[in-house]
């Protein structure tokens, strides 16, 4: 979203059903070289107007080397959905993926899901768009697709679609971790779509229309709404706060840090499955419930020691400002300023030995029967390989002081193919050709 065309204020607020001719270069893949030097070092937000200042109503280009919705500056709202494929017909699946691509192409441009539109068709046919986004702008909608391990080989071992041999070896069920309380009905899935937008209605509209188009081929397995992005994926974004009240995303991999993104996010030539997955990524999702009430009654000191940063500025303990470097040698009193069982200490690349791109959202799914908020972080991480990405970090978080305040309740992993190259391309073409 750095091109002038994509910032043209006249485009902001254009109503649906008018075609947006986007001249901007693809967001994904256009990575400003920030943070020269250290491979992982965070990109300092020198000039917040330099990037990512496209209006919240703008369209994000659908085509590009990489799928949008990964390094795209995180939008405010999420509707994430996982599907089971309920047919054994490869042809039906391919046909649906093509229909989805066409609809996604239109919806991300701020148009109706179908070519006719919500209200321009005949009186006797169900409309080819559901209509709740009429008049709403594109709102930065991105739709990102992923393929789960069970698409390749079903749980019962069958190769339903003749692609078992094309499953890249890193696309496998995640190992279980201590403390996991996973609900199988809210975990896994053959396909996923991550819909992110700055207007929740636009994200929900997109998921609803894709589900509608998929009738008979897919069935929604689970879905999750999220709000208040808990990560920044561009240094131009101010760091938002998660439901623990802490800034979240300070030391994330940022789009501006091109070399680190290349190294840790995108599948490269020579990687497993590169014949169809190069330029893609893996996404791991974890619905992490926060134990809100115990957290809220813990002291400020306990909270800051748990995270390893200050609650106000978000500075690493022992430092002053949010973007001061994390320095584990700084001492406070008798011990290190950043405790060795704090979240930041254990998650930091120095100690985990790797990096991931976090793109999570907060959720509140009402309350449980005991009057407690059913709330937390829907954690989303993109990485080049789940084993050396999420899994490696999560293993390192085994002694995380934060574990006392959280519980992982769902888990899923998907391989996200590269971006859509042009008008004839469709989601999964390289995999199914």
């Amino acid at each position, binding site marked *: 979203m750095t091109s002038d065309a994509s910032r043209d204020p006249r485009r902001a607020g254009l109503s649906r059903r008018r075609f947006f001719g986007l001249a901007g270069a693809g967001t994904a893949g256009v990575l400003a070289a920030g943070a020269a030097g250290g491979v992982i070092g965070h990109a300092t937000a020198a000039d917040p107007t330099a990037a990512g200042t496209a209006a919240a109503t703008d369209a994000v280009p659908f085509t590009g080397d990489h799928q949008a919705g990964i390094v795209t500056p995180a939008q405010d709202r999420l509707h994430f959905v996982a599907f089971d494929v309920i047919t054994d017909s490869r042809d039906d699946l391919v046909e649906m993926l093509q229909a989805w691509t066409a609809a996604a192409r239109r919806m991300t441009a701020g148009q109706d899901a179908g070519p006719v539109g919500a209200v321009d068709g005949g*009186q006797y*046919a169900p409309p080819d768009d559901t209509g709740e986004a009429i008049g709403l702008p594109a709102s930065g909608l991105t739709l990102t697709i992923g393929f789960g391990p069970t698409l390749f080989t079903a749980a019962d071992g069958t190769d339903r679609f003749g692609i078992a041999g094309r499953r890249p070896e890193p696309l496998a069920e995640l190992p279980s971790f201590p403390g996991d309380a996973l609900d199988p009905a809210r975990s896994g899935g053959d396909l996923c779509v991550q819909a992110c937008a700055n207007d929740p209605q636009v994200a929900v509209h997109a998921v609803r229309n894709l589900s509608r188009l998929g009738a*008979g081929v897919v*069935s929604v397995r689970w879905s999750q709404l999220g709000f208040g992005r808990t990560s920044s994926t561009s240094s131009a974004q101010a760091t938002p706060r998660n439901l623990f009240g802490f800034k979240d995303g300070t030391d994330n991999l940022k789009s501006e840090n091109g070399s680190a993104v290349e190294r840790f996010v995108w599948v490269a030539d020579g990687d497993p499955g590169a014949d169809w997955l190069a330029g893609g990524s893996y996404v791991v999702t974890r619905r992490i419930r926060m134990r809100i009430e115990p957290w809220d009654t813990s002291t400020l000191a306990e909270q800051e020691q748990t995270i390893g940063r200050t609650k106000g500025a978000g500075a690493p303990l022992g430092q002053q400002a949010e973007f001061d470097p994390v320095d584990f040698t700084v001492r406070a009193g008798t011990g290190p300023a950043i405790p060795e069982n704090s979240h930041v200490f254990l998650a930091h690349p120095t100690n985990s030995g790797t990096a991931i791109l976090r793109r999570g959202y907060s959720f509140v799914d009402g309350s449980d029967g005991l009057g407690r908020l059913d709330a937390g972080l829907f954690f989303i991480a993109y990485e080049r390989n789940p084993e050396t990405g999420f899994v490696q970090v999560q293993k390192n978080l085994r002694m995380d002081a934060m574990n006392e305040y959280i519980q992982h309740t769902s888990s899923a992993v998907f391989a996200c193919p590269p971006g859509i190259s042009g008008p004839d391309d469709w989601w999964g073409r390289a995999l199914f050709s």
Partner: protein
Amino acid sequence: MSMHARNRTILAGATALAAALTLAACGGGSDTGGATGDAGDDIAVAAGDDSCDVAKADLDAGTHRFTVTNGGSKVTEFYVYADGDRVMGEVENIAPGVARELLVQLPAGDYETACKPGMIGDGIRSTLTVSGDAPSLSQDETLAQAGTDYQRYVQSQTGALVEQTTAFVNAVKAGDVAGAKALYPVARTYWERIEPVAESFGDLDPIIDGREGDQAEGEDFTGFHRLEQALWQTGDVSAMGPYADQLLTNVQEIATRANDVQLDPLQLANGAKALLDEIANGKITGEEDRYSHTDLWDFAANLEGSQAAVQALRPYLAENDADLVAEIDDRFAATGQELAQYRSGDGWTSYDQLTEEQLRGLSDSITALTGSVSQVAAVVAQR
């Protein structure tokens, strides 16, 4: 053309396209109504619990009389189906030991006969080849025929509905709880197959089929579900006599009215969709039969009724959107298979025995089928 303007001249016209008429559905009369053509032959059908022997497999085009004798121990039904299970004629509710007649007009073509002992499933099928004239119809005639065929279907269902409701009500009044429980889902099958037609009588539907809690203030809870509640919740039907009588009166009234309903093709298409919505809204959720949990009986009946309505339109649809017909066939078959897993003895698995996963499979297949059936109206409306 206005389908409301259609009248019986088409039925009895010189083209001999008269609708097949069931003779016996309403209790064994032999009035042939407006049927033309000679029914000189009499084809015997020996229906058993596991057999369905039709005396002839090859016929000449024209009107034929089938005499179906139920030598088995279960109530049975007999159907003559065209392609896609389009009902050409059927006799409902043939009790053990009883013989019933079906008069049906068959143009040249390939058909299937089916007996359905116990009234459920695909039935025991045989092929039936009819040779001779296969008149070609204009599209308007084809559509008119659809309305006529479906009306005949409604009539045979209402006939059986009255008979089975009578039996059910008698069992209730006799205090025969076990007998009444067995008859309850059977009587409802005929109701559920034509539910949108029945529901079009807004004054009668709520008092026949209303659920507890649906009544306005001051209104009594009556009808099928009132008796269901007594049968399954307390097992005490001693105070149910007046409700039983009232149910039968109302059902008789609705049968009379339904027989006069003329449906245009668009209403047929919408009715077929409405029946699937009934499944999605009331049966998949177990709300319909909340005391007896016989929801899958109603599910199956809604599905059959929907298929009957769509298939009445089949000749027209096949000419105008063959792909849609193929898709609809696939999806009715898929839903039928999904449901067939829950056959249990002569009936269906109790709703409360189904797992979340199983309900989801049923729901997915209904969602897909509804998506296809919802396209029918636009094809019909092109006319």
